[in-house]
């Protein structure tokens, strides 16, 4: 196992370097000129050229990358083109809001999703199962922005129970996290139900069902363990995705998170911010997936890595 961990860590380092190179190259190769984005439409071409030069974008690609690596080694991820502040600071500023939203949404996903899944599986074929299906369908199909704006209109404008937007107190977390959790909750609920059913429907379980409560609880626990792995996989991916993928929810709720930051930075061609966020999120993904992979054998001792 130790050699596996070491191997994975080594690969992670390579992966991160690979990501940094890929980000760097892609940004500079796709059409779109940072200076043009900063200067107004009515700026002369000479001003555009001058600014590009200032931003260091006229050097050969490998020179730019070398400079970038040296700065990163010092902890300097460059100056954001948009904000003219250190890119790292701009990104880190968004961490609290992002982490809070992600954690609360994930908590909701696990608690609500697994609960619904259990109820639907244990009461397969009954009204509870169908209700679960309806909720799951809604969760998967309602567009993020639709759900978000409707919640704002209902709870923020009409009822005035909750704030409409922004990031200040715990009440501000409610609507965005519900909106963000809708899809993963539905997915987790369905996966839980499906995995539980696999175990619960085994012949010997069926015949054994008459045996009594204690035995049924043991079986349930066994079944849950079976469900843990796919659910864990989904959650692992969702956490990572949420860092950069919650952009719609963040836009709707004016939530100062990293999703909106990275998407705006991409549109603005703010290279330093995009680079910083992508490298950070790659690090998170790599470590998170490593963690999930390490948890598999813990949850299911039959799993071994070669």
């Amino acid at each position, binding site marked *: 196992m130790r050699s596996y961990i070491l191997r994975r860590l080594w690969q992670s380092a390579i992966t991160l370097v690979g990501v940094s190179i890929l980000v760097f190259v892609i940004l500079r190769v796709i059409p*779109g000129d940072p200076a043009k984005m900063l*200067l107004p439409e009515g*700026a*002369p*071409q000479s001003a555009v050229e001058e600014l590009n030069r200032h931003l260091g974008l006229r050097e050969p690609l490998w020179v730019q990358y070398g400079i970038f690596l040296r700065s990163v080694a010092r902890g300097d991820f460059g100056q954001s083109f948009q904000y003219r502040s250190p890119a790292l600071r701009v990104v880190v*500023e968004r961490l609290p809001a992002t982490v809070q939203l992600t954690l609360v949404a994930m908590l909701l996903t696990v608690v609500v999703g697994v609960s619904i899944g259990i109820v639907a599986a244990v009461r397969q074929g009954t009204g509870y199962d169908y209700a679960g299906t309806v909720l799951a369908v809604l969760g998967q199909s309602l567009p993020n922005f639709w759900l978000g704006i409707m919640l704002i209109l209902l709870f923020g404008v009409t009822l005035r129970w909750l704030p*409409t*937007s922004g990031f200040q107190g715990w009440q501000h977390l409610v609507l965005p996290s519900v909106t963000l959790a809708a899809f993963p909750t539905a997915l987790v609920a369905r996966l839980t139900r499906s995995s539980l059913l696999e175990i619960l429907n085994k012949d010997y379980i069926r015949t054994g069902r008459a045996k009594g409560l204690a035995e049924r609880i043991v079986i349930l626990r066994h079944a849950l363990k079976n469900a843990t792995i796919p659910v864990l996989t989904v959650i692992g991916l969702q956490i990572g995705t949420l860092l950069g993928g919650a952009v719609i929810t963040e836009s709707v709720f004016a939530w100062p998170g990293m999703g909106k930051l990275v998407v*705006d930075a991409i549109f603005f061609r703010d290279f330093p911010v995009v680079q910083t966020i992508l490298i950070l999120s790659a690090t998170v993904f790599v470590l998170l997936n490593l963690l999930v992979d390490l948890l598999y054998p813990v949850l299911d001792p039959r799993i071994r890595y070669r």
Partner: protein
Amino acid sequence: MHEKHGRAMRLNRRQFLVGSGAVLGASVLPASARAQVRRGEIVAGLSERMLTLDPANHYSISSTSVLRHVFDPLVEVTNDSKFVPALAESWHAVNNTTWRFTLRKGVSFHDGSPFNADSVVFTLKRVRDNTKLIKSFVYQDIEDVRKDGDWAVTVSTKRPFGSLPAHLTMLGMLPPGAAGQEDAFFQKPAGTGPFRFVSWTHGDHIVLSANPGYWKPGIPKVEKLTVRFIPELSTRTAALRAGELHVIDRVPPDMVATLKASPGVRVLDIPAIEAQRWHFQLAKEPVKDPRVRKAVSLGIDRNVIIKDLLLGYGRPVVSPIPPGLIGHTSLGQKAYDPERARQILRQAGYQNLSIDFVLMKDLYPKQLEIAQAAAAMLGDVGIKVNIRNLEIATAREQRSAGNYDIFFSGWAHMPHDPDWYLGQWFTKAGAEKLTRFADPRVEQLIAEGRVPDPRVRQQKYEEIQRILWEEEPEIWPYYSVAIYAISDKLRGFEARRDYYVLLYDVSIG
């Protein structure tokens, strides 16, 4: 019971005394000693993110609005485009290439340092010399900035720079102490403005607090100002309706009815100094041919766009330069005549024309809707329009490369002066990577129109526009109307034609 009544009586008496004292004081005491009655907090919701705290480093309407509260410029512009004194008490053109500014005395920056000629020299030279600053290219024509004592400054320019005062309305004055430590300075900037900077989160919100020592009496009227940036329309309007915001900008016409019906909300609108413009790629077939452009112009029913799509929140265009600015004139309205358009195309031998209409994603309200409407209208005339709604960076690259026939754009005259618009889009050098416009007559007239004398400028600009009206290098479908929505608790808010949201003389309660 009795006690409450008594207390109420006492309060009333106190209020009366304070009130009458204030009235007496207002008529007897000098301005600076008058009791400043500042109360409350205003929260504004703007649709465009603010990117920087440096007045010289942006050309964004939103940033101009907000920074105007922290920094004062030399010259201010009123809502009807009159230039009035701010930090400069007066100014005049000594000759075609020299301006002289006389400065206001007794003003200090938020950090205590005094405002004087050193500040002006520093601010202007900085924006000219540091070519990394976004506003730098505008000030390249400045030859020298010299102080004339502590309270006057002379600016000499390489070419006539008649629009200098207009540009200066957007340039906040900085203290010379910022030199050499700009990064630190802009962490906590100090201007001379009605509000002091407190804090900001990049791209999310900024917090300002009143400057008690502001040089204009009675300003500001509130203790605290928070500006939040909320690009999402539904959220911005929801927050206003829920009472969380007191003012929002960029309200689209379709939301007006809903907002008017919301309790506690008022909607204000005013024609803006902005003309929408769809410019042609003048070096590309088929729009290179003036007859095709004429057919396109005749094929668009601008009145339907204004009436049905903008719900009346638009004005017909009578000259490329909007009303209120120097140079505005009346050249009549462009006709809608689809039959004649078809005829022109037939006579010119064009069949099955297909042109690309490029839009920059989400830049203008309802742009996609309007573009589709225009495309449908032109389809009736025999011109197939391919709408290409692109991400901004890509759209601008395509424009530089010349890969478009018509490009959806607009021009809000931020420095209330058309010189920039004309100089950029209608000179050969300026339009080279944009519209490929080149007309020596127009070029000459633009150069002649740069002198400070307003009568000369008016005449030159009228001539230029007559040529443009005839040549039709652009379609000007309408003048925009700026729509704002405010809480009815706000007093004194003025809907501005330049989209600025200025709140220093607005009170709440």
